[in-house]
């Protein structure tokens, strides 16, 4: 379980707290239950990426705290894993070596690592591409590598920072559906940052709508669409349209 308590973060000019500062996050609080899929939605500059980076332990908050299973986050840990916006693959490693990266850092027997990684490479549908380099595969496939790498550590919480922002619209829809299928088998807790309204409704149990300057929570929207959402097209559900209108208005207002 993930809990965000009164989180605030200010970016000062040249890191000097005596200078003027930009309030990226202002008093953010919410809770994520186990196995819940939460989307953080908002325009650019509303601090959603900052929030997820604090949750990952890459950034320190100025006020407030992030709790994972009751313990405060101070550094990256093996209970959380991050999927990056620009895939964050290491260009000198093959697909397999990239997926292995997380487990390699932890150590442990190589055979075991290979076995686990092979499982997740197959789960994201990349079998046959293990020895390719990132620049040899498409953006959509690169992000599957990123997802497999995060999943291979079998974390409780998956943090995804606009993972599908850099791929084209059709690939994006395909990846969303695949993520839903994968999530149905792994059942991690997911915190997913996006600026696409449709994406957030399609994926999330709850959408946390944020607004910028200073970054804060505008409202929480519960998405009560039935799962699995890929079998029948939920986008056709009239409730989908209603939710979209509602969220769009929240973003405008």
């Amino acid at each position, binding site marked *: 379980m993930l809990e965000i308590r009164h989180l605030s973060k200010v970016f000062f000019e040249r890191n000097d707290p005596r200078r003027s500062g930009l309030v990226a996050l202002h008093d953010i609080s919410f809770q994520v239950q186990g196995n819940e899929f939460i989307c953080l939605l908002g*325009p*650019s500059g509303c601090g959603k990426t900052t929030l997820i980076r604090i949750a990952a332990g890459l950034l320190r908050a100025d006020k407030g705290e992030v709790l994972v299973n009751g313990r405060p986050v101070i550094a990256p840990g093996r209970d959380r894993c991050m999927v990056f916006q620009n895939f964050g693959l290491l260009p000198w490693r093959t697909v397999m070596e990239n997926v292995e990266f997380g487990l390699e850092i932890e150590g442990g027997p190589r055979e075991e690592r290979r076995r686990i990684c092979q499982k997740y490479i197959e789960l994201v549908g990349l079998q046959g591409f293990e020895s390719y380099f990132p620049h040899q595969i498409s953006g959509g496939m690169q992000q599957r590598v990123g997802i497999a790498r995060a999943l291979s550590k079998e974390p409780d919480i998956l943090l995804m920072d606009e993972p599908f*922002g850099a791929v*084209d*619209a*059709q690939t994006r829809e395909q990846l969303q559906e695949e993520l839903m299928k994968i999530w149905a088998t792994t059942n991690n807790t997911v915190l997913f940052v*996006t*600026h*696409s*309204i*449709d*994406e957030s409704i399609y994926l999330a149990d709850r959408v946390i709508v944020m607004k910028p300057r200073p970054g804060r929570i505008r409202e929480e929207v519960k998405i009560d669409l039935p799962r699995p959402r890929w079998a029948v*097209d939920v*986008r*056709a559900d009239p409730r989908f*349209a209603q939710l*979209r*209108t509602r969220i*769009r208005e929240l*973003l405008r207002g």
Partner: protein
Amino acid sequence: MGLIPATRGSIHFRDQLVTEPIQDVGMVFQSPVLLPWRSVLDNVLLPIEVMNRSRREHAPAALELIDLVGLSGFENKMPRELSGGMQQRASICRALITNPSLLLMDEPFGALDAMTREELGVELMRIWDEKRKTVVFVTHSIPEAVLLADRVVVFTARPGRVAEIIEVKLPRPRGLETEFAAEFKEYVDRIRAIIYAQKVRR
């Protein structure tokens, strides 16, 4: 439009065979490609300059266009001072300044985030309403195609063929609320079905 020759077949514009770039056309690309050393206004007036027409005569038209896309007040800013969405608006002005009868848009909103993208789509329809042009718009996004188009030409991948041409008979003016119409959904589903049928076959 005459930039690369066809291997076979031809393109006709106003009953004329296109063999070299034709003049009466405006182009908008995926990235705004503004000249970094020119202000917004100077970028918009670039086509006028290279066509050897009078800058002074066209300056009011340029300002009007800048106003139309909602950039008034930014005409003297440099491109790097503008956000991606604003830069793309300026490049739309640049395409319109010669008052072409044909506007070619190659995934113009592809590099923008989803919210800016929706906003610019609506904006484009408003501009189109005011300055009726023939527009050929290339996109990846199915909802974007249905929202904007009178007709959607669905292509197959490798080799590129026309899979189907779909007439979109949604009433105009359209806006973001158009997306809730049941017909809108039907169009989107139909196109998606065509595209995925292609993928499965391969």
